[in-house]
């Protein structure tokens, strides 16, 4: 008897269960970096290396903008990061700057260009939002920029810009094919 009375209850409880899924809410990807911009300044002119991928992982391919550089020239470089998928565009650079102790940029070139840090975190270790690059002779080179989160800055060579022992997670890894003329 009891069982029979309870059956409608079970049907009711299933019916209360919605047939439609909850609409997903845009998660507001404030951590996303869509744009990596390098401004290189020498002799009063600014040259730009820019990587933009508005839709994040997958989807459309990223857009790269690469200015040519002059041979045997020292440029002072500065890096800015943006999330342009938001309106208005959000600058991410301060997040890295505020956590300077936990971040470090690493630079490398396939050719003879060399990089030196021109900024420091609170512990006197390099950060790399500002740097200098000195180009070599005329060539086609690939510049690679890597931002590591929570690297071991005290490991051998890391404060000199050697990524080998750095560890940590890669937040940014972007390569530009640069023409040095």
């Amino acid at each position, binding site marked *: 008897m009891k069982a029979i009375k309870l059956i409608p209850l079970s049907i009711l409880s299933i019916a209360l269960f919605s047939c439609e899924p909850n609409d*997903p809410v845009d998660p507001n990807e404030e951590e996303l970096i869509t744009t990596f911009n390098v401004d290189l300044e020498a002799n009063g002119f600014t040259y730009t290396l820019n990587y933009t991928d508005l839709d994040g992982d997958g989807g459309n391919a990223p857009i790269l903008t690469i200015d040519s550089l002059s041979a045997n020239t020292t440029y002072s470089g500065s890096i800015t990061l943006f999330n342009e998928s938001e309106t208005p565009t959000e600058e991410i650079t301060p997040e890295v700057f505020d956590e300077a102790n936990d971040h470090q940029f690493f630079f490398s070139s396939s050719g003879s260009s060399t990089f030196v840090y021109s900024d420091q975190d609170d512990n006197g270790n390099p950060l790399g939002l500002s740097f200098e690059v000195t180009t070599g002779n005329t060539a086609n080179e690939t510049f690679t920029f890597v931002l590591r989160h929570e690297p071991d800055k005290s490991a051998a060579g890391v404060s000199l810009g050697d990524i080998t022992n750095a560890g940590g997670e890669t937040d940014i890894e972007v390569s530009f094919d640069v023409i040095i003329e």
Partner: protein
Amino acid sequence: MNKLFYILTFTFGWSLSVTAQICSIQLKGIVNDSHDATPVSDASIYLSEVGTEQWTDAKGKFSFANLCPGTYHLIIQHIGCPTKRMAFELYADTIMEINIEHHVNMLHEVDVHEHHDNAMNEQVLGINSMDNNSQKSLAASLTHVPGVNMISNGSDIGVPMIHGLSGNRMTVINNGVLHSGQQWGTDHSPEIDLNSAGNVTVVNGAAAIRYPGNHMGGIVVLSPLDIPYDPHLHGKTRSTIESNGRGGTLNAQLFKGLKRLQWRVGTTLKHYGDRHSPEYYLKNTGTKQAHANAELRKQWKNKLEWEGYYNFFSANYGILRGSHIGNLTDLESAFERQIPYYTDSFFSNALEAPKQWVQHHQIKSTLRKQWNSKMLEWNLSGQRNQRREFDVRRSGRSDIPALSLSQHSLQSDLIFKDKKSLEIGYQLLGKNNTNIPETGILPLIPNYVAFTNGMYASYSRRFSIIKIDLGGRYDFTFRNIAMLTNSVPREIAYFTNKFHHIGFIGRGTINVAPKWKMLGEFSIKQRPPEINELYAFGLHQGVSGIEEGNADLNRERGIKSTLQLRGRIGENIHVDLRGYMHLFNGYIFLQPQSEFRLTIRGAFPVYTYEQCDARLTGGDFILKYKLGKDWNFETTWSYVHGINRSIQLPLTFMPPLQAQYKLSYEIPEWNNWRNLKIELEHEYVAKQWHWDPTLDFIAPPKGYNLVNLHMSTTLNKWKFKPQLRVGVNNISNTIYRDYLNRQRYFADALGRNITLSWIQNF
């Protein structure tokens, strides 16, 4: 006869004669093996209220004299049997017949009895194993069952794998309810504490037809124990401390069994810090876990029964800090490290990102009516599952989950049984899965609502020496999906899934010779593609890459044939041999794509779900040899060979060849020690030679050998008689990595572990 002899058995209650005398009552008894009714000698019989112990003689008999009328408790202990307690009231001279489950001495398992037919192609973890494994995860406790492996991600996150099938192809049934969580991730452990169950059964064959779910091969069934009649409150504690992880597990249960009302409550607490590989600490590999359950059973005179059950589970699992990677370059540099990044030289209890937090509630009501030899049962259950996964993130976001899912599910079953021969059931399952938008990351799987309508029928019949089982099931799965697209701006796309899937099973069990039994089984199973296989999109740390679903996937179909032979050679050798072949059409697997995906974080491997024709062929072998009165030897072997038939290449993450040898020495009595058992165990896991380099990042680790030693006894001291156990796992502190543990990419597996356990019945 001037005396009335009444037979008392544990399960059927008790009775008494009427010729009462004051304090001169005699209690006589006989202890039998419940499997074949043979008398059990050398069993210890302890009468708690008097504090005296007796041993059964060669005919299984014992006797106590000069007892006063009253309520007594007998504690029956025998080598290889779970300790048994009985309460009874004594008014007059009584003769008792006590049946004990002599399971663990496996030589008795093979006896060819009617009620053991179902035990073919099934393996049970009984009370003894549960006591000994109380500190382990569900998956880890099953790894000693032949044919069962574990896909794991560190020490406490593990998913059982049965005959090479895991994840979406494996189902856990907890107390009759399809456990509903986030099974799609190989790094998502079933949200169940082993201690919440009374026993665990791995079902490979026919019995699985009555359970819904996507199990293509086997299922894992957790069931509560019966609560025996006893007017007093009783309970049990299991306490374990372990050297590796410097932590412990505490489980406590209380129960009371009245004539028409029984209840049980239980809880478990677990706390471990960083585990240790032979050479270094594994940073951030601790566990904090809690569980609570309550059950109530009520019977009425008209054979109407009700059972209510509630289970709560909560866990925090740390994931090796050095296993969290940013991109392909990070992954490759992690592979080259001897010692993982972030390894500390000190022990820590801290649990930081990357970590997982899970919580699970299950509530269930069962109403059962029996008449003649028929039974009607109605179950209604609800579950709530929450999962949050934390990654290492910038600007204090490590405290914000990177994955946050909430799931509600309902299940209603109506089951009719006629004796044991016919069973018909109808099942309705509903599931609502939602991403909580707190993550700041595009969700990996979409929001969805899924319904499954299922019905099944099974029939079994015996014709002289052959027993036939037949079963069929049909399910209809319907899903409504709402997914965020990866366009800018984000939009919502809606999809609908409809899948019909069927199952069929037929098997025959034949008594081929005295003490020899053969089983032949044939089954057809289908499962719809799961939500992640259809729609996953994004970076999945669990596969170290970008995972993409494939909306064009169709049902996966499998046909499995099993042949099993079990029997005894002479009095002392027990053999169990099982072989199977599982053919798949449309086997769903993750195929790495040839090109890497370029993102602002660098390159990532991309995996897409694809289907192929596959074949899994394997076998399990068990040999038990009674070497002498006190010595036993046991060996088990298992192997699965998985191949993608479409391209004739190996399937990935198939368990390699494994073997175990166990030598045990048991003595019933030594000074104050009872049931002293010393067990030396050797485990061998071969290298997985059969692998496809295009499907894995690095070569499988080399094979390894582990040696473990366990010693257990019951101290016949004090009134409470503690059961104690000491174990040393990986005695030689061997450095190894396990192919099925994802942590092998980054770190060595666990080093030596010393375990101390104290099990107390009261």
